[in-house]
């Protein structure tokens, strides 16, 4: 069953076609990697999905329902969670409060919120820093905090925009394990440049180039695909 799909989804910025006529289907329960060279339109595409960016044309369906005209907060309310490529945490608030803001839309009560927050922070290895200000964290740890904020929403669809950027090798290993664990209950759309992450966690891969879908298939197929290789080498 399809959880998310788009039809003819397009976005242009002052003449530049960032996303062009994309038809995309994401089955429930899948871990999908979205890859493509810099400027391919990946961030713009997921921004269109969750309503952060208004499309020039086209439709988005979530759980069989046309959500093209819903504002972002309503789409999030339906069970999408979005983490930013450029970390966008509440810098002057504590890690705890950052995650609590994400959790409180779903659970109420001090004790229940605390349990959710500490659970989410523990999963990304930041439970020990709960009282620190988010702005004091290193870039990599802010990315982990972003992920914890996504987890605390217990979303049906988790959209992650380059979550492993700035993480250490050990943290990347932890991240892969986390995604595998999460994939049992959550559909995941993952923008990722790190090929080892893509190869190890993704069920399917979509390759975006110049705002269009260039190819789709298993990680192995994409790895072997000549067109994809060419796009990455800049000759495509």
């Amino acid at each position, binding site marked *: 069953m399809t959880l998310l799909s788009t039809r003819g989804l397009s976005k242009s910025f002052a003449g530049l076609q960032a996303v062009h006529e994309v038809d995309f289907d994401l089955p429930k329960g899948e871990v999908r990697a979205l890859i493509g060279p810099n400027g391919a339109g990946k961030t713009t595409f997921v921004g269109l999905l969750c309503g*952060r960016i208004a499309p020039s044309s086209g439709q988005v369906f979530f759980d069989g329902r046309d959500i093209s005209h819903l504002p972002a907060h309503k789409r999030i309310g339906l069970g999408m969670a979005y983490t930013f490529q450029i970390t966008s945490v509440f810098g002057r608030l504590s890690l705890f409060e950052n995650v609590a803001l994400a959790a409180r839309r779903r659970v109420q009560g001090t004790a229940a919120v605390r349990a959710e927050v500490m659970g989410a922070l523990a999963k990304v290895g930041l439970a020990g820093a709960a009282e620190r200000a988010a702005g004091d964290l290193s870039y990599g740890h802010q990315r982990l905090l972003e992920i914890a904020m996504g987890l605390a*929403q217990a979303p049906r669809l988790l959209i992650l925009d380059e979550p492993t950027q700035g993480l250490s090798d050990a943290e990347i290993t932890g991240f892969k394990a986390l995604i595998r664990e999460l994939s049992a209950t959550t559909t995941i759309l993952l923008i990722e440049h790190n090929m080892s992450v893509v190869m190890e966690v993704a069920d399917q891969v979509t390759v975006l180039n110049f705002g269009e879908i260039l190819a789709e298939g298993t990680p192995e197929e994409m790895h072997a695909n000549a067109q994809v290789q060419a796009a990455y080498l800049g000759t495509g």
Partner: protein
Amino acid sequence: MSDRAKTLLLHGGVLVLLFALQFVLPAYHHGNLARIMVLASFAIGYNVMFGYAGLLSLGHALFFAAGMYGLGLAVAHGGADPVSGLLAGIAAALAVSVAVGLLALRTSGVAFMIVTLMFAQVGYLAVLYFGTYTRGDEGIVLQQAQRVLWGIDLTQPGARYFAALLLFAVCLLATLGLVRAPFGKVLIAIRENEERARMLGYDVFRYKLAAVVISGVLSGLAGAVYGLLFGFVGATFASVQYSIFPLLWVLLGGAGTVLGPFVGTLFMFYLIDLSSAVTSAYMLVAGVALVLLTLFAPQGLVGEIRNRIWRWLP
């Protein structure tokens, strides 16, 4: 001691202190403090929007005046008793803040400041235009007989002080509850990073509108009580001066702190009071003090205390 206990102790302690002070203060300062508590309630209202939701309004005189004229007109022309007058003031502030919120929140940043400034200017001009009823600059003077509430004569200093303290306590405890509740945390989140708050699924517009309405109603309540306690309802209170005052009080005391508005109002009131006793250039003294504070305590007095000593301050 938990943060919660410390918070209750501090804010409760301030209220108890203010209660006790009325028995020891000389008449002059007794009268001043009553006025300061009412003006601080206005500043508390301002702080909900500016300090917590991050919305800089330059038109809060409109809300203060809406409450004040709501009461003043109802009492002077409608023959209302003080309670009905206060309700009229609250209703007026509520209506005005909903309207201003719905329109002004379509903008943000500098445009929001300009739009609120313009709305307040419209309010000020309306007060002058309808001079037949408002008596313009000259204002409406409420008679002693019109200021008796449940048999209590509010022209008496003791009763007036107590009424001012009651208003202040209500406003202080209301904001304390507000900012400790999830609602207040969302306002802070919007102030810190609006886009992120939206992408966590919060309806940012609705929260901002709620902040404007709460802020407007508290400010209007303060305006209505001011008119009732001091017996004067005049156009000055609708002028741009009364839009700038709460901004200054809150900046000095500490935006986004529960006690800041009171501390800022108290500080500025006495700064002007004391310097005007020494020199006719008192506004210069006040100005220099303000500049120094802005340079050395940019978070305001209570804000600096929070940064340096009491990190738990709400």
